[in-house]
């Protein structure tokens, strides 16, 4: 809600300046989203001028020469082409040097000769100043202002606008009066209700039929006769501009003005366009009913909208929709330049339904944003009375002919709330005195029903539908009393050692382990497009789709981080050829909804075998780090794992205690091509399903005895067939070695050369022997080594 500071002062006598006021709003009710000074929006060199004389231009038929007093002691000669220019007018003058217009249309006024006469400025039209659409003639001020006064000042635009974030529970604050009430409460200053013209129920101008009282609790209507449509007064136009509304005409502007003032949206029908009803009284009849699915309304914005069942509509005698209640009026009954009779509608519609309709038809208006939050039914007639007052001042001879008012919801008023001071203290932790409570609540409009030493009971005001519980009242007290005055304490009571969450700790341990191994943790948005899925080789069938994605780039929830990783390698990290990334997070699918996975990608210029050794180094010790009972193992035989993006022959099943929990494999070149990944194209992708692992018992490793006796280390080189894997070789070594003394076997090098013979490779292993609780004999090692060597010759 944009409020103009000076305008607000109409309703509350406060000495707070605009900055202090904004700050008080922040600390008591509404966050300030921005502030804007309008005085600075209109140029300083735009001033008020008084037209003293007008003569024809000697050299041009359409131009005239004006003598204008701009308060400088010396009159200015200004050439002007506007047809409405006349002596005695108070006008807006742009002095030389003044910049007008915006962007490409910006221009600067200069003294210049126009057909032989030096023109020292420009008399402006509304459109040229940017405060209206009228470009047909110059803007003429109704009130005389001192020549030379800044125009912004003269027309009431020299004001500062505070943009307040009004929370959805406070529709009453979508109005100047509501906000003034807040000021009067926190500043303890006087609230001033605007003037109004009292209305009495007369002969009803319209016959009303409210079919559903839940949809419409109250419908008040006032008929205005002898209306002359024209512009609204300049001050009103300026104020509407300040609050973000476009001036249109006197009737519409006044309705908008009163909506801003009091928070009650209003609508105007052209009375003569409503068909007359069947009754003998010869008046039109209107009905409020629910729309049928497929009914249409031609809005006064020129758009035809199809309605849904349940939308609230106002229909005329012929059952034609005249307005979509609380959102927009119909085109056919709209007020036009020739309207002379206006039927004003001031109603109370069911908030939730207005909100549903507004979101379904995709139209949010100033009216609907107010109605949807639930308005005070008590204010409908009050708003009409204010409109009557304002329009009577604008239109001489205006006739107020009768008020209709149907009010069915009166019984649903607030019930009283009983509070104790002890209860207040129990919630807030502070003591607020009885007098402070009373001062705050009465200023906010609460009615004190009863007051004792220990507490009080109050009735919330009709405009505060949000107050239904004691806690609501307590919040009112503390926000005005001051959140900043609330002391800071730490919850009492002994601090219990919190139960450790092994699932979370295990995930964090895995993260830290992988990061220690040189990998970078990523967190990707878990969304992807159909094209990205297809590029990766995944079908969209097993994915969760967002029915209304914000963009097609985020149409699906990922079922594998691979899509995100490949996207990453092709964009954010396209320049990093050597890279290891991992992510621990949820992936999504229809069958499991969401599951926690650990995924990783390694990217390199290396050969697959070399990179795979790096991959395995990263994963070494992962199980232990995660406090699992054993390490993960690689299963090279398992056929049950696959991934369309990986070469099937490359896939290694990751197992934990014999069960497959994941897979590791080389990403297909064709997929990298699809993603336009040009370098670092050796890519291994790993995925481990964490769901069952995270709930494994937390394994606390115990110390294995340290080696206290010296080890004997030996290198062993074996020439073996190319198609024998290192895993097979190592298995052979472990099988034949004296297990009681072999401590570890590690691969040192693999050497391939033609000189070794066809399909042969030389593999060097590093063996460590240790006797654990005794010193090893050289001979034991020798005989074990010989046994191994003998076994390995069979692999040649």
């Amino acid at each position, binding site marked *: 809600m944009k409020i103009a500071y000076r305008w607000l002062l109409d309703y509350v006598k406060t000495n707070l300046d605009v900055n202090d006021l904004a700050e008080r709003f922040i600390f008591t009710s509404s966050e300030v989203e921005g502030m804007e000074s309008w005085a600075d929006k209109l140029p300083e060199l735009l001033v008020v001028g008084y037209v003293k004389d007008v003569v024809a231009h000697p050299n041009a038929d359409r131009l005239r020469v004006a003598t204008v007093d701009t308060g400088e002691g010396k009159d200015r000669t200004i050439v002007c082409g506007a047809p409405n220019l006349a002596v005695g007018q108070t006008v807006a003058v742009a002095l030389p040097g003044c910049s007008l217009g915006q962007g490409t249309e910006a221009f600067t006024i200069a003294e210049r000769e126009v057909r032989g006469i030096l023109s020292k400025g420009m008399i402006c039209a509304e459109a040229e100043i940017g405060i209206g659409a009228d470009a047909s003639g110059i803007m003429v001020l109704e009130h005389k202002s001192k020549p030379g006064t800044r125009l912004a000042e003269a027309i009431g635009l020299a004001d500062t606008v505070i943009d307040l974030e009004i929370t*959805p529970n406070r529709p009453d604050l979508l109005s100047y009066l509501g906000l003034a009430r807040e000021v009067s409460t926190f500043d303890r200053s006087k609230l001033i209700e605007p003037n109004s013209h009292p209305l009495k129920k007369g002969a009803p101008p319209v016959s009303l039929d409210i079919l559903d009282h839940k949809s419409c609790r109250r419908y008040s209507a006032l008929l205005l006769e002898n209306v002359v449509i024209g512009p609204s007064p300049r001050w009103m136009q300026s104020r509407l501009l300040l609050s973000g509304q476009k001036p249109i005409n006197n009737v519409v502007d006044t309705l908008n003005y009163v909506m801003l003032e009091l928070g009650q949206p209003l609508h105007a029908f052209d009375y003569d366009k409503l068909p007359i009803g069947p009754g003998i009284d010869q008046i039109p009849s209107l009905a409020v009913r629910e729309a049928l699915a497929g009914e249409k309304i031609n809005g006064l914005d020129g758009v035809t909208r199809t309605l849904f069942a349940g939308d609230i509509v106002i229909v005329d005698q012929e059952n034609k929709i005249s307005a979509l209640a609380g959102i927009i009026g119909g085109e056919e009954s709209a007020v036009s330049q020739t309207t002379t009779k206006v039927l004003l509608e001031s109603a109370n519609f069911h908030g939730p339904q207005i909100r549903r309709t507004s979101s379904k038809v995709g139209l949010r208006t100033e009216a609907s944003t107010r109605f949807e939050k639930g308005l005070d039914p008590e204010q409908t007639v009050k708003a009409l009375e204010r409109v009557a007052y304002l329009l009577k001042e604008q239109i001489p001879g205006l006739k107020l002919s009768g008020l209709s008012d149907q009010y069915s919801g009166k019984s649903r008023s607030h019930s009283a709330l009983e509070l104790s001071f002890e209860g207040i203290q129990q919630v*807030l932790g502070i003591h607020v005195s009885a007098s402070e409570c009373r001062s705050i609540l009465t200023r906010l409009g609460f009615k004190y029903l009863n007051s004792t030493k220990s507490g009080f009971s109050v009735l919330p005001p009709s405009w505060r539908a949000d107050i239904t*519980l004691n806690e609501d009242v*307590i919040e009112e007290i*503390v926000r005005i009393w001051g*959140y900043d005055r609330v002391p800071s*304490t730490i919850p009492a009571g002994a601090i219990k050692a919190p139960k450790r*969450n092994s699932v979370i700790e295990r995930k964090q341990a895995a993260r830290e382990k992988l990061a220690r191994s040189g990998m970078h943790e990523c967190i990707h948005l878990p969304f992807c497009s159909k094209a990205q899925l297809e590029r990766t080789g995944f079908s969209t069938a097993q994915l969760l789709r*967002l029915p209304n994605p914000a963009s097609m780039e985020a149409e699906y929830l990922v079922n594998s981080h691979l899509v995100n990783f490949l996207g990453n390698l092709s964009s954010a990290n396209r320049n990093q050829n050597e890279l290891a990334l991992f992510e621990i*997070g949820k992936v999504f699918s229809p069958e499991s909804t969401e599951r926690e996975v650990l995924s990783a990608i390694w990217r390199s210029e290396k050969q697959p075998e070399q990179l795979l050794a790096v991959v395995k180094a990263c994963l070494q010790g992962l199980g232990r780090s995660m406090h699992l009972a054993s390490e993960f193992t690689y299963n090279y035989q398992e056929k049950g794992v696959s991934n369309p993006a990986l070469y099937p022959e490359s896939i290694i099943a990751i197992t934990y205690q014999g069960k497959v929990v994941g897979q590791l494999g080389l990403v297909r070149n064709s997929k990298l091509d699809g993603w336009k990944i040009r370098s670092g194209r050796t890519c291994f992708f790993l995925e481990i399903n964490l769901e069952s692992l995270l709930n494994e018992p937390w394994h606390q490793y115990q110390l294995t005895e340290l080696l206290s006796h010296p080890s004997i280390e030996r290198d062993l080189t074996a020439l073996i067939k190319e198609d024998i894997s290192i895993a097979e070789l190592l298995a052979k070594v472990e099988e034949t070695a004296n297990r009681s003394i072999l401590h570890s076997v590690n691969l040192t090098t693999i050497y391939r050369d033609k000189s070794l013979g066809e399909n042969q490779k030389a593999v060097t292993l590093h063996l460590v022997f240790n006797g654990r609780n005794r010193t090893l004999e050289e001979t034991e090692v020798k005989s074990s080594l010989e046994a191994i060597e003998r076994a390995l010759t069979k692999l040649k």
Partner: protein
Amino acid sequence: MPSNISQSQTTLDEIRSSVYQQIEAKADPESIRLAVFGRKQGTLTAFLKSLPSLSEEEKRQLGPQANQLKKELEVAIANYEESSQDSCPVFDRTIPATQVTQGSLHPVSSMIAEMCGIFADLGFEVVEGPEIVDEEDNFESLNITTDHPARDGHKTIFLEDGWLLRTQTSSIQVKEMQRRLKSKQLPIRIVAPGKTYRRETDATHSPMFHQLEALLVDNQTTLSDLKGTMQYFAKRLFGEDIQTRFRPHFFPFTEPSAELDMLWKDKKTGQTRWLEVAGCGMVHPKVMANAGLNPRIYQGWAFGFSIERPIMIRHGISDIRQLYANSVELLDQFPSQL
């Protein structure tokens, strides 16, 4: 006879400096040793031999000095001898660092771990909840009824069949309270970090972001406790000097409600700005009742703290989307405490 003593001291000094000179000149260690300690020509040996003939006063002063010198020179010559046999290999001490790949934790998971650590100190347990939830968990149970205008602010990302991506970590509240009530684990002190989703994207909003929910339920706890805990938390994160402000707000599931802002200083421009970092309040009686807790017996408070905002404040990151592009260039800058 002081002159005699000083003369002898000069002799000792000369012996000392002659040894160091020879070491400096890289003389043969054995010949140095011989020149000083040799049985016949050794200079120090000669001096020591002359000691018995001296007066009592001279013996008392010079004896210990000579012995001290002997020990010193023995060690000096031995060290010299060793170093002359074990010379330092030649290398360039200005050699630049090898490029070792250092891994990193994502700033978000580091921040979550740090935040949970602070809450652990206050006795809060860490829990997690699902990211796909229904309207009941995300809205209804939290007193955000179907047609509540507050729902508009959530910009919910819906899935099929009434499911949605949770818009706030508060979605864990009611189920956790129910579970703990059933298993008699009251009072409650929990924090729930995690991913949340909303349909919005700009420099300060990402469709996926993180929150840390804190919930305390006890027989007696107040708005002052809430304010105090949040300020303690902010100070643990940012230091004693961090400026915060606690101001009223509205949430359907808390009453009274508040928001916490932190004063952020742009280190580049020096400008300061209040940044909203958390929404909070006393748990609404209806939410208590929804969890089966009697609001007359139990009170509680809860807050939802932004994870990204504190990261952005701390590291001067102005666009939240940078955090989820996962460029190694960015990740490398915040390796965290491994």
